[in-house]
Each structure stands twice: as structure tokens, then as C-alpha cells.
């Protein structure tokens, strides 16, 4: 069995052999992993696959294995969010996306590593230790869905789910040379996903090709009354897989090619844009003057929401608890011991930004800047069909290189977080290599225009071979 297979190939293999054999083969590859991508491998995966063989299943993913980020609730598997504070916690309910996957027949291989509570761009802040980039084991896989991207890139799962609050699907997709989509805000239910900054985040798929992203979106997207921001868009994602970009208008926002961008990244992205031109699309430069304020606005909003969302982790109902002489001492000690440094930093900053006297200066200001960033997207996307830019300004950095200085790490989200402020869809697709490290092309579209975003990504894939490159270190 080939190490890297598309979902279509996996399904053929299941018919040829069995779901059990396919799952067993993935478990064997996971057993020899060099990347530390899984925080927990399911002990029930084989049994589940066997049951699909014996009972039959007519779902679109019958017997197809998948990896799930460790902040998405799966009954019977720990949901640790890469944190000590959730030690021992096993969710009693499934996230909406898991219900959808299970009814489609998918077999869950396990939970994947992440930055603690999805706060990071490198998967180094996990309580379970860092995940390695399959292209260079001394480098980060990106984050926060670094485990999901690394296992897909390393052939340890055909595809995976991640979550994207400020780039957490697209950044690791770019660093690991896989495809990753952040859907339009509201397209996928967040029910059962542990909230970090709920006005910004979406569950998103990671895969080795665009078609598999569409297959997964057809399963997980759709209305769910348990998420009050859920919207029924009725999009048929696989119908978007058309190899044609003739007449498509591409906008290139110069603000996404700012200071500090790696010359090879810039070159690879422009090569991609010229490829589109040769396929019949047109491009023009567009200006989005408020993008330079997006990062500060994003972090203030994300930290403020986090300070509120993470208040629930108090040692009372689940997870780790430290003893204390009274309620306040118990909670304060539990949170001091249970959260890692970066999570505590963000809670403290968010608490400060929301506190009396500072609310207007920081939080309200950030929300107003968010409006201006959103207007930049609205204006640009009124003129063009899509925007294209680098996903990450640089290729994957070394483990330990940026972790000491939070601000340096935050700056790596400069091209991904504006998209979350605006809520628009955005996909990262492989568009080249520099010194053996993958580069990601980011394609952004209008709200709920995933079909155009995916059509462009699919067309690029059909006419280039970047997505067929595999990391030699894990081959």
C-alpha cells in the first residue's frame, strides 16, 4: 500500500482489501512515526474498521481513516487541547463535525498535537512536547494544528481536521506542504470544539490535495442549531473541482508582501500568479491599507475572548485540580499549575484589555479596527474574484528559535490573521520549495465563495506538481 494516498485511492484499497487492512497499515506507519504528531492513538480504530467491513456502510467515507485535532471532542478519546489542565478529561459527547464524520463512515485514528489551547504558530507550547516538521525534523510544523498537518504530510493519515483562529490550519499546511482550508465563518459548526476566540475560529480540513478538502467539506459543513453562528450555505464543495480559471480576476494585495518576506517565498507566489495568468486568469495589484493594523487588532480580540472562554478551566468539573485552602486559592493554584506560560500570558493580557479603564483603549479599539480590515476585504473583493498572497512570509523555522519572544512568534501570523478578522474563506496550497522546505500560496475569496477558492486551488494543482512532493526524511 502506498504511503501517501488520496481519499479516492484509500476507498479503492478498502474495496480491494478491507477497511481493517487500510487502518492497520496507517497504525503501522504511526507506530514508526518520527514527528510526534499524535497525542493519542485510538485503541478502537481497528475494531471500528472491522465493524465497517462486517456490517457494511454506505457513507461517503466508509472505512476511511482520519486524524482529529485535540481540541475537537470525540467520545472516548481524551480532549486535552495540549494542556495539563485537561489531564484525564474524556468528553461525554461528540462535536458536530465528529457526528458528521462518523455517520459518513470515517474511522478516527486518534487525536493530534497542537499548541496549548490553539495559542501558537509552532506546536511548541503543547504539554506533550513539540511536533516535528516531516520535511526537517529540527523545524516546527507550524501551528497551532501542527500535529494534523505533520501526520498528513508524513503519510500517517490521509487527511485530518484542524481549527483556524488566526492561521492555525493554513500556517501548518504551508510549513508541511499540504493543503489546508479555513472555511467562511459560520460554514462549519463549532459545537464540541473547545473555544479559544470564538468570533474568529472555524474547523478546517487538511489534506494532500484539494479534492480531499472538498470531500471533507461536503461531510462536515452545514447548519447546526447548537452553534448560534452556524449558517446553512448549501454549498456543494466537490462540484467546485473544475480545472478552469479563464476570466477569473485575481487581486494581489501588496501589503501581504511586506518587509521581512523570504525572497524565495515571494518568487514562488509570483510564479503561481503568473501560472494562473497563463491559464487564462488576469491579475492586478490591490491595496488594503489597514492590513498593517490587523495583527494588533487580531491579538487583542483573540486574547480578550480567550480570557473569558478559558475562565471555565477552574478544576471543578474535569481535568487537573490543585488543592487550596479555599475556593479562590484552589482555582488560582490550579490555573497557575495547569496552564502553560503562553496561555497564561494571553489570559492576563486579555483580562487587562477588558478591565475597567482599558476596555475602550484596547478591546473596543481593536473591534473598530476589525471593521476597517473587513472593509478592506469587501472593497478589494468587489473588484476581483480572489486575492492571492503568501500564506507565511517565511518557511518553517527551527524548534526553539522563536519561542522565547512572544512578539516575534505573533508576527509570523501577519498574513493569516486578517482573514479571520474578516471571516472570509482562505486556502493554503503548496507552491514550491526553498532549501527543501515547502512554501504555501494563500487564496482568499468572498464569504461563502469557497467554490471559487477551491476551483482556483484545484486548477493550480491540476497544472503543477508541487502537491506531489513528499518529505524525504519520512519517505
Amino acid at each position, binding site marked *: 500500500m502506498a504511503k501517501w494516498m488520496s481519499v479516492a485511492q484509500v476507498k479503492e484499497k478498502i474495496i480491494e482489501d478491507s477497511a481493517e487492512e487500510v487502518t492497520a497499515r496507517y497504525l503501522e506507519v504511526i507506530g514508526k512515526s518520527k514527528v510526534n504528531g499524535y497525542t493519542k492513538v485510538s485503541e478502537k480504530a481497528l475494531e471500528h474498521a472491522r465493524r465497517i467491513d462486517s456490517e457494511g456502510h454506505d457513507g461517503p467515507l466508509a472505512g476511511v481513516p482520519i486524524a482529529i485535532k485535540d481540541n475537537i471532542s470525540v467520545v472516548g478519546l481524551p480532549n486535552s487541547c495540549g494542556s495539563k489542565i485537561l489531564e484525564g478529561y474524556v468528553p461525554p459527547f461528540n462535536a458536530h463535525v465528529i457526528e458528521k464524520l462518523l455517520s459518513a463512515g470515517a474511522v478516527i485514528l486518534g487525536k493530534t498535537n497542537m499548541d496549548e489551547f490553539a495559542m501558537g504558530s509552532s506546536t511548541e507550547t503543547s504539554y506533550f512536547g513539540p511536533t516535528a516538521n516531516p520535511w526537517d525534523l529540527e523545524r516546527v510544523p507550524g501551528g497551532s494544528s501542527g500535529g494534523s498537518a505533520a501526520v498528513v504530510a508524513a503519510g500517517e493519515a490521509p487527511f485530518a481536521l484542524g481549527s483556524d483562529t488566526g492561521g492555525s490550519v493554513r500556517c501548518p499546511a504551508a510549513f508541511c506542504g499540504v493543503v489546508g482550508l479555513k472555511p467562511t465563518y459560520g460554514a462549519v459548526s463549532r459545537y464540541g470544539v473547545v473555544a479559544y476566540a470564538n468570533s474568529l475560529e472555524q474547523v478546517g480540513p487538511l489534506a494532500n490535495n484539494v479534492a480531499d478538502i472538498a470531500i471533507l467539506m461536503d461531510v462536515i459543513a452545514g447548519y447546526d442549531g447548537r452553534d448560534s453562528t452556524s449558517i446553512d450555505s448549501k454549498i456543494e464543495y466537490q462540484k467546485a473541482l473544475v480545472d478552469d480559471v479563464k476570466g477569473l480576476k485575481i487581486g494581489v494585495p501588496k501589503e501581504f508582501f511586506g518587509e521581512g518576506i523570504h525572497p524565495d517565498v515571494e518568487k514562488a507566489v509570483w510564479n503561481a500568479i503568473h501560472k494562473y495568468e497563463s491559464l487564462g486568469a488576469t491579475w492586478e495589484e490591490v491595496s488594503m491599507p489597514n492590513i498593517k493594523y490587523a495583527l494588533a487588532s487580531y491579538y487583542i480580540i483573540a486574547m480578550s475572548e480567550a480570557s473569558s472562554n478559558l475562565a471555565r478551566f477552574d478544576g471543578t468539573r474535569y481535568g487537573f485540580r490543585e488543592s487550596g485552602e479555599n475556593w479562590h486559592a484552589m482555582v488560582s493554584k490550579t490555573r497557575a499549575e495547569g496552564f502553560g506560560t503562553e496561555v497564561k500570558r494571553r489570559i492576563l493580557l486579555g*483580562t487587562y484589555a477588558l478591565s475597567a479603564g482599558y476596555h475602550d483603549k484596547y478591546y473596543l479599539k481593536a473591534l473598530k479596527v476589525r471593521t476597517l480590515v473587513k472593509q478592506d476585504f469587501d472593497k478589494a473583493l468587489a473588484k476581483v474574484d480572489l486575492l492571492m498572497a503568501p500564506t507565511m512570509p517565511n518557511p518553517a523555522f527551527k524548534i526553539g528559535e522563536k519561542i522565547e519572544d512572544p512578539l516575534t512568534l505573533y508576527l509570523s501570523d501577519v498574513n493569516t490573521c486578517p482573514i479571520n478578522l474578516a471571516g472570509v474563506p482562505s486556502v493554503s496550497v503548496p507552491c514550491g520549495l526553498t532549501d527543501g522546505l515547502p512554501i504555501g500560496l494563500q487564496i482568499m475569496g468572498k464569504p461563502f465563495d469557497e467554490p471559487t477558492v477551491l476551483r482556483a486551488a484545484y486548477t493550480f494543482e491540476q497544472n503543477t506538481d508541487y502537491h506531489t512532493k513528499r518529505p524525504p526524511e519520512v519517505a
Partner: protein
Amino acid sequence: MITKEDVEHIGWLARIEISEQETVEYMEKLNSVLEYFGQLDELPTEDVVPTYHVAEIYNVFREDIVEECLPQETVLANTEYKQDGTFRVPKIG
């Protein structure tokens, strides 16, 4: 600029115990991030309305009917600190 006292106060508001040594570390790191946030001051926003979220949804209602919820023993299954069907915590004061 936030002071050591500010860090202690925020730590109390957020219910995170911070040691003397950590207070200084947090103060330095938090100030460097706040300094970066300060760049937003240069952007005039008096007439701009805030965006709390981008979903074009306002009030979400459902019928007021009782739905199935998790059984009590399932809810209590994730902690050893429980008593008589409730979560057990230390006294408040």
C-alpha cells in the same frame, strides 16, 4: 506601561497565582506586547462602528421545549471531587 502591582491585580482578576519572580517576567513580556498594540492609536476610529463578529446573524431563537441532556452520572464522570450528585469544591472564604 503596566507595573508589578498591575500584574498582581490582573492575576487576581484572572484567578492565576503569580509568584514574585514571575511578576517581573510577566511585566516585561506583557509590556512589550502592549507597546506593539499601541500602534493602533495612530489610526482614527471615532466614526467607526465596532465589529464583534462577521456572521450576519442577529437574534437566534428556538422553541422553548425541553430537550434531552446528559445524565447526571455522565456529567460527574470526569472528576473525583463529587458528593450527592454535585461537584465538591473547597469553601469560598
